[in-house]
């Protein structure tokens, strides 16, 4: 049996490579900008008086939304590319090994850990199964949804004949009913994303304190550190 007082030099693992970390923080910042500007596009700030040419408040809010929108799109395309080019953890949030028995077992264990029944979580290098599941469903797919509906909304402004309109608005608007429904669904998408971010930040802090490994410093430095030196019992 491994003794808890023994220290191992291989304890720290380099898991989040620099491109992934940079993507994480740029993406996080852009999404915060998108949520704030998006909210105020639907529920604008109090009206200002004076001459119209002295102000461009909605204009700037919308402009920031579109810039951040494209940052997220380009970033996400890069992230997909990186899923193939990066280390094996880079693929985790895109591909859930649902066909593997151990994955379900470990998911169940993680749920028990969150239900405060299990005494301690397993030790992982990458993301645990519950994290992967949440990131896959509430982040990856929600972001894809927001990107597609966002581009369809953008195409309404650029108009017919532009790629945004022809490849997105043209079929996405009728899919949702009409333009107004599309706005509503894009907005609901934002709230789902906000729910993800709240959960994400909570569990990041919680696991940082309570789990057997480093969490927040890992997405900053890329290194996973461990609080005990018993063997790695999680798969990924």
């Amino acid at each position: 049996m491994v003794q808890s007082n023994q220290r191992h030099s291989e304890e720290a693992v380099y898991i989040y490579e620099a491109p992934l970390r940079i993507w994480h923080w740029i993406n996080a910042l852009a999404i915060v900008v998108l949520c704030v500007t998006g909210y105020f596009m639907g529920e604008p700030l109090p009206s200002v008086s004076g001459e119209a040419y002295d102000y461009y408040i909605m204009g700037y809010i919308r402009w920031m939304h579109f810039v951040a929108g494209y940052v997220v799109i380009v970033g996400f395309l890069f992230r997909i590319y990186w899923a193939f080019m990066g280390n094996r953890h880079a693929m985790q949030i895109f591909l859930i090994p649902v066909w593997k028995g151990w994955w379900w077992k470990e998911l169940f264990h993680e749920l028990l850990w969150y239900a405060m029944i299990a005494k301690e979580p397993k030790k992982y290098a990458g993301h645990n199964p519950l994290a992967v599941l949440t990131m896959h469903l509430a982040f990856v797919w929600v972001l894809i949804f927001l990107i597609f509906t966002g581009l369809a909304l953008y195409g309404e402004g650029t108009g017919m004949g532009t790629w945004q309109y022809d490849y997105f608005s043209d079929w996405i608007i009728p899919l949702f009913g009409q333009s107004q429904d599309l706005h509503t669904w894009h907005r609901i998408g934002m709230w789902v994303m906000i729910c993800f971010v709240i959960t994400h930040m909570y569990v990041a802090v919680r696991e940082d304190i309570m789990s057997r490994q480093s969490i927040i410093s890992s997405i900053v430095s890329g290194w996973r550190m461990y609080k005990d030196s018993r063997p790695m019992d999680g798969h990924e």
Partner: protein
Amino acid sequence: MHETFYDVMRRQGITRRSFLKYCSLAAAALGLGPSFVPKIAHAMETKPRIPVLWLHGLECTCCSESFLRSAHPLAKDVILSMISLDYDDTIMAAAGHQAEAIIEETIEKYDGNYILAVEGNAPLNEDGMYCIIGGKPFVEQLRHAASHAKAIVSWGSCASWGCVQAARPNPTRATPTHMVPGIADKPIIKVPGCPPISEVMTAVITYMLTFEKMPELDRQGRPKMFYSQRIHDKCYRRPHFDAGQFVESFDDEGARKGYCLYKVGCKGPTTYNACSTVRWNGGLSFPIQAGHPCIGCSEDGFWDKGSFYERQTNVKGFGIEASADRIGATSAAIVGGAAAVHAAASVVKHMTSKGNQE
């Protein structure tokens, strides 16, 4: 020998000068350059006029009323003489059996060649009994006329989307033309609006008669030339929108100054129509110019999107009706609350387990 449009117009006492004026007007309305004026004139002088059969289902006749109010009196006269409105129960002289006989006559005489203009829609519940024309359900008349037509024009939001009679819960199951089961597979042009703008209606007909083809349609079947942009894209209050100057309530300073109506529910940003360019009543004005937000009358299901005076749509489902923000903020609060409770429980667990270790 078929009569041409020009023959008909001359017979109606329209001078050649007026006729040419109309051709330039039509070209302008269709967004065609001056070089198209002679082409339109030529077509009108040589082509046999195309008969139009105008049927009315469940409707309020606002489309007919709008059509008759075409801005340019000349345009109206020309259009009315141009299309042989062999049957239109609002404006024709015949009535009763005589009138119904005209439909059959037209269908037989111009089999496969007439344009079927549908105003209103067909209720399907109770075998179509909610709309009876000449003793028979309208839906039967519609299917019959459609199967012999060359093309179908769905006038207004009723025929295009369903409009008010199809608003939830749609007790009569009023159904727009293209969704009527068993309707013949004919090209359908949607000209939505409640009502559509008269200039748009006349221009669509003129285009089809002149070029003998359908105007270019978008994926949803609306003529691109009038429905490719939103009200918001060409709204004259748009600078106030971009500046962030809004009417907050209908009696405030902003309302007097003509600020943007977004916050009092303007649906201009989500409504495809030509109001902000073509305007109404001969370019005189349009709802936003009169200080009222656009209610999105040319969009599918605009009755069922909640208040006309709030921008955010109501979402139905799970037995509740609320805006995206109400649903979203509530969910976020629940998630946040759950996290807080979980955090508190975690702290307790952490403390106790630490205690055990020591």
